[in-house]
């Protein structure tokens, strides 16, 4: 369970480090559940301005503006990029990426169905993430040996 938003809290980084260590030891992670501010981990539009980006690379190449930034390769100081690191984990280890729908709506993280339902201008849920309820969280808790929480800042 991840309660903190990427880049502004420690939770995402710690959770990502921990997940990688868990996989390295040969364990399985059924699902990662993003709740509270953690829902922002599922935002397709989150970027870390201090990280390296294609945008900066093109500025270096002498382009003052960049109309088509192309694929994003943002990197945080610790090497973790979000939401890409979660998407990589899902692709590599088939771990579900579940986002509490209540938290997601509050943070503006919505899929196409929610965009239509709430007449919002655009969908922002990153690929590979699913909006889900707390019931799904408990289904996952029940079938897991361990639940690890990466909490929110006090």
């Amino acid at each position: 369970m991840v309660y903190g938003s990427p880049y502004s809290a420690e939770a995402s980084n710690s959770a990502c480090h921990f997940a990688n260590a868990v996989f390295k030891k040969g364990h399985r992670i059924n699902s990662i559940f993003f709740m509270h501010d953690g829902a922002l981990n599922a935002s397709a539009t989150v970027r870390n301005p201090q990280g390296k980006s294609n945008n900066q690379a093109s500025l270096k190449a002498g382009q003052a503006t960049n109309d088509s930034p192309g694929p994003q390769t943002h990197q945080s100081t610790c090497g973790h990029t979000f939401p890409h690191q979660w998407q990589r984990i899902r692709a590599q280890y088939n771990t579900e990426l579940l986002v509490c729908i209540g938290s997601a709506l509050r943070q503006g993280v919505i899929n196409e169905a929610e965009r239509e339902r709430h007449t919002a201008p655009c969908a922002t849920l990153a690929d590979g993430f699913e909006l889900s309820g707390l019931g799904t969280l408990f289904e996952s808790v029940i079938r897991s040996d361990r639940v690890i929480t990466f909490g929110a800042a006090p």
Partner: protein
Amino acid sequence: MSHRRRIAVLITRAAYGSNLSKGALEATLAASIFDQDLSVVFTEDGVYQLLVGEAAETLGLANYRVQLADLPDYGIDKIYIDSESASQRGISPQDVLSVADWISHTQISEIFNRSDHILSF
């Protein structure tokens, strides 16, 4: 579904100050649907959630104290308040909902030790 799990829900935050406190209640209610062995422990600032007589409505917030009082109706009857956290905050038994049993840190440790999972909010 696999066997019945012993789950301790740990509530550490005051009501309304953080949305996580409401999330904790929603998660507890969701868990009750799965017929698990649930214990709910209010500790640290979480003890404030059990105070009676507060009026969230005056701040334009939905009061969910009613739902806390109704937890036993959802089959959740193991509700505990950390007596040390409460006394540190000047809270006496007459100040809080009667649904919670007052327990010590030693008893909380025992609950954790016999739980399969601890969900902390």
